[in-house]
């Protein structure tokens, strides 16, 4: 485990070496949060209600901030792995004394943590100014646990998409569609609470709500029952997708053909 921790630390330090670069890249969250605020401010004002589907405007904005932090901050693992498979550079990683997927986990976490931190801080300042103070501190620990589970779920799905390069010529379309399914069924742009009942029910049977809605909703409202539901869902999908990832990687290794060096 020590070697993966070392890989994580190296990548963390590497990312922190260029904070200005991360901050500039993170500036995009300001545009998103500004537009979201306009949309939801108009929507709440037009409804004449303070609370819509159990959420205030402030709740909705902080929900969206956490969801966007996860979406913009998670590593683009699918692109990295598919490129390594396509150009054969995966060969240089496979003969090293570490597990390939855990190595990617260390790198991804090291790159992702500072990016998510800066996204949250920059976006949080704007949301605080526009919509009000952040949610109660007592909500944060449970949200953090669910956030970590969601990050791991994204890692598994991205890993699977990247490994699809063993059989597919182009994996980018899988990544686009997966991202949009998270947008819709994960509640990235609209909290699932605003969805029709049948779509809310459907989303509970799919992994996307556990990858986005769960942590974002727990961040704005402490709800032990929801927390248990989210964690059980995340563990189930982690076991399923993690197992599938290990299986796909093992099968991919059998198909791997490296010519020259």
């Amino acid at each position, binding site marked *: 485990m020590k070697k993966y921790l070392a890989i994580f630390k190296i990548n963390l330090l590497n990312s922190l070496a260029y904070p200005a670069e991360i901050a500039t890249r993170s500036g995009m969250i300001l545009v998103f949060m500004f537009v979201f605020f306009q949309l939801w401010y108009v929507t709440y004002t037009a409804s004449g209600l303070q609370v819509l589907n159990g959420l205030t405007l402030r709740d909705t904005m902080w929900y969206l901030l956490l969801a966007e932090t996860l979406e913009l901050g998670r590593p683009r693992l699918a692109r990295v792995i598919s490129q390594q498979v396509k150009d054969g550079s995966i060969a240089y990683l496979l003969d090293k004394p570490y597990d390939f997927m855990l190595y990617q986990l260390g790198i991804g976490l090291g790159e992702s943590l500072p990016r998510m931190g800066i996204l949250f801080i920059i976006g949080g300042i704007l949301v605080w100014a526009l919509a009000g103070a952040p949610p109660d501190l007592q909500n944060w620990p449970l949200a953090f646990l669910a956030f970590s589970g969601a990050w791991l779920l994204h890692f598994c799905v991205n890993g699977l998409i990247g490994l699809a390069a063993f059989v*597919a*010529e182009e994996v980018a379309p899988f990544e686009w569609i997966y991202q949009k399914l998270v947008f819709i069924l994960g509640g990235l742009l*609209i909290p699932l609470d605003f969805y029709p009942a049948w779509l809310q029910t459907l989303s509970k049977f799919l992994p996307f709500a556990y990858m986005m809605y769960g942590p974002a909703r727990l961040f704005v409202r402490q709800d032990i029952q929801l927390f248990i539901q989210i964690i059980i869902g995340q563990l189930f999908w982690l076991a399923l997708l993690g197992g599938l990832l290990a299986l796909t990687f093992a099968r991919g290794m059998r198909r791997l053909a490296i010519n020259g060096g």
Partner: protein
Amino acid sequence: MVRELKFLAALWKINIASAMEYRIAFLSQSIGMILNDGVYFLVWIIFFDRFNNIRGWQLTDMFLVFGVSAGAFGLAGMLFGNTFNLGDIIINGRLDYYLSLPRPTLLHVLASRTVPSGFGDFLYGFISYFASGQFSFGGLGRFVLALLLATIVFVSFLVIIQSLAFWLGTGGTLTGIAINAMITFALYPITLFNNAAKLILFLIIPAAFMGAVPAGFVRGFSWYLLGQMTLASFSFLALAVFLFHLGLRRYESGSAIQVEV
């Protein structure tokens, strides 16, 4: 002029032949992008199912906005694919190749690449227009005209932003933010924004000319809107050409050996 058009036609022919060389990747990216856009649009279907309208904007308007924006984005990628990485080309000294040839540099560099997924976006633009329920032959004519003018604004805006690379020496991050800002603002109802924000969307980040204004023109013919779009597209185009050539005077490279394929 005729000579340059023939040159452009020859470049596009080669680009398409080159994209079709990897037929499966081309088709998967095009079809994948249509699905990606379609799934993304579900957000608005869900939103308007719950809230009906936003300051007068309804789902039909969103179909038109998406149609024009996706179509213009796709057309820019199809015909002027290097619009998306002009900044990197400038910074990496890859303009050398284009400067050594007796053709207009900006036109040559922009049209030397096709983004395969652009075909998907372009087709989705028409699908969205047909799905809007606003179809008429006159409307289709207006849609095509609006699409062309929106493409000019979009390409010109990206050239302006990326020409800053001649002075700033950085490219990718700024381009990413510019593209995201343009698309994000273009895809949301303009009625959300106050006058100050609208001024920005008309003059600084001209997203209004990629979304709301052309969508309004498609809905019904208006000399006023046509005049606005024409003025905007030619003003931004003139500014883009001027800035690029102004920056070109500062261009320097290490005379590295580059291979353009």
